């Protein structure tokens, strides 16, 4: 790991050289009143004044819908064509928040539990993350409560901390980061001794993970789930904006004799998610589904995958149509 300084102008040149390298660059863009990651060509397209993109960067390594393989039926025989990792282009994610970059770890933990997930891993290999540390936060942010911080470098290949002069501290964290630097090495100047912490938003932790985990270990039969979930309407907004939610469905897309098997996003909050063909539904009620969501992230994942399933990005709270505020709910569980 190496720390450098990059000036505002240098940053612009470097950005251009990344574009020129032929890699696809996705960055937050403000359009239709929302900021979200979009394919960009110019730095000027990148949004400035916002707290958080509506959606996380999850889709870059776990697309909303992705072809697992294709097949063709031919008089009772079937020919398969496997997913080809080579079809995935080199991608750079620009201006990622640390809480988003941190989401790659839990996501990969899920996908690679025991058996490796070829598709997810192929995306990971081709994706480089240039994160920007956070100088701002809002009331939904709580990364510091879930092992993160506004300057957390986990998951990032390079992290930039923007300085008052428009330049930035550049932490080059991984070989992929180094490769990006190598596109235009001269703009990376020697570091000037800027203190990164000074430029980060101050976000005190709101609860202790250990405390939450301990409480949750005994909370399966608690009434809290019913109380908290009463107003939940059972949509998938929280899951779909979440950087770590990985529940998926496998579906078939058929056109005559040709077909493809598709993996697409699903959500544990949907009423029919666990419905058996027999009509029995182990998670019949919204309270059970809410419990699953919370326990999965804050209890099962830490226990089984050694990683918390939440990065504190606060997106679910912002996206929820009925103000199911995860910070409020977790805090109240911790305090119980």
């Amino acid at each position, binding site marked *: 790991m190496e720390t450098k300084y990059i000036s505002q102008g240098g940053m612009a040149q470097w950005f251009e050289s990344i574009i020129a390298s032929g890699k696809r660059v996705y960055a937050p863009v403000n359009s239709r009143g929302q900021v979200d990651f979009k394919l960009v060509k110019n730095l000027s397209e990148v949004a400035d004044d916002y707290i958080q993109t509506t959606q996380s960067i999850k889709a870059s390594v776990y697309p909303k819908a992705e072809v697992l393989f294709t097949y063709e039926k031919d008089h009772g025989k079937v020919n398969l064509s496997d997913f080809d990792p080579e079809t995935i282009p080199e991608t750079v994610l620009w201006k990622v928040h640390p809480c988003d970059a941190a989401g790659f770890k839990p996501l990969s933990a899920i996908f690679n539990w025991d058996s490796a997930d070829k598709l997810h891993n192929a995306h990971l290999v081709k994706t480089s993350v240039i994160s920007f540390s956070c100088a701002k936060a809002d009331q939904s942010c709580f990364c510091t409560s879930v092992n993160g911080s506004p300057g957390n470098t986990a998951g990032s290949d390079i992290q930039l901390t923007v300085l008052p002069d428009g330049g930035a501290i550049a932490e080059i964290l991984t070989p992929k980061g180094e490769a990006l630097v190598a596109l235009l090495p001269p703009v990376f100047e020697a570091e000037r001794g800027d203190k990164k912490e000074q430029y980060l938003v101050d976000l005190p932790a709101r609860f202790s993970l250990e405390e939450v985990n301990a409480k949750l270990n005994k909370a399966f039969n608690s009434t809290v789930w019913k109380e908290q979930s*009463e107003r939940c309407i059972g949509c998938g*907004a929280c899951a*779909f904006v979440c950087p770590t939610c990985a529940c998926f469905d496998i579906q078939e897309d058929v056109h005559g004799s040709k077909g493809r098997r598709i993996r697409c996003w699903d959500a544990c909050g949907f009423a*029919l998610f666990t419905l058996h063909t027999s009509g029995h539904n182990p998670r019949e009620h919204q309270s059970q589904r809410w419990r699953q969501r919370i326990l999965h992230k804050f209890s099962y994942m830490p226990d089984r995958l050694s990683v918390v399933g939440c990065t504190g990005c606060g997106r679910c709270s912002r996206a929820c149509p*009925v103000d199911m*505020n995860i910070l409020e709910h977790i805090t109240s569980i911790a305090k119980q």
Partner: protein
Amino acid sequence: MKKLRDRVAALLDEGAVSLVIGYEEGTKRPRPLFCRNSESSGKLIFDSRCFHNLAVYVTKKELVGKERFAVTAPISTLRSILQLYVENQLSEEKLLVLTVDLNGELREFVTFEEISAYVAQFEMKRGEREQEILSKIEGMTREERWKFWMGEMSHCFKCYACRSACPLCYCTKCVVEVNRPQWINPWPSPISNMEWHVNRAMHMVGRCTACGACGDACPVGIPIDLITRKMMEDLAPEFGYIPGQPAKQGNALSSWKLDDREQFIR
């Protein structure tokens, strides 16, 4: 507000109802509140910021249980409740409806007719946002509309917040979950997203009360409520119904007139 809180507290204390669905202050704006005892009635609020259509909860059996319950209903919720009555989803014995009228007076309704009469005083008008976007769309050529909506549809990731927020989407198995045949592909793609929204709009003909809950719920900001609203605006005069004031039986698509328009039929 005090009158409302007192009345709710009394209703719960007397055991007249076992639950009152209302609003409390939320982290960003008022949010739904479920009062099961008189203490929690102190959190109740009721003002113009109370936007959620609480009628979405009244069909959830696990929530409302078997006993009588009450809901504090702004006008949009009242309209949806009427429609739910028409669709045999509510019984007058089970539901008490509370609202605060324009003079700040607490009103209580038990019957369909009472609500219907009250609702009739209110006109359904486009708000500023609706006016702005709809007039933009109305000014577009067909090709531009296609481009506009495909752009919007490409953002939809099928979280179905629109469906979940809509009081009239109470089916236990939605058509998108039907897989024999798989009418609408379950993964998000611009066409299947559009198919879903067209389907929803068709299912809402004569039923939608333009409460805007679907559009408000959409996390990616697609103005989906305007699809059903525009349909309602265009079709209500043609089919001869007053939006939000349903007839007690049937709806616009379950009935017809001998002289319905047919110039488009060759």
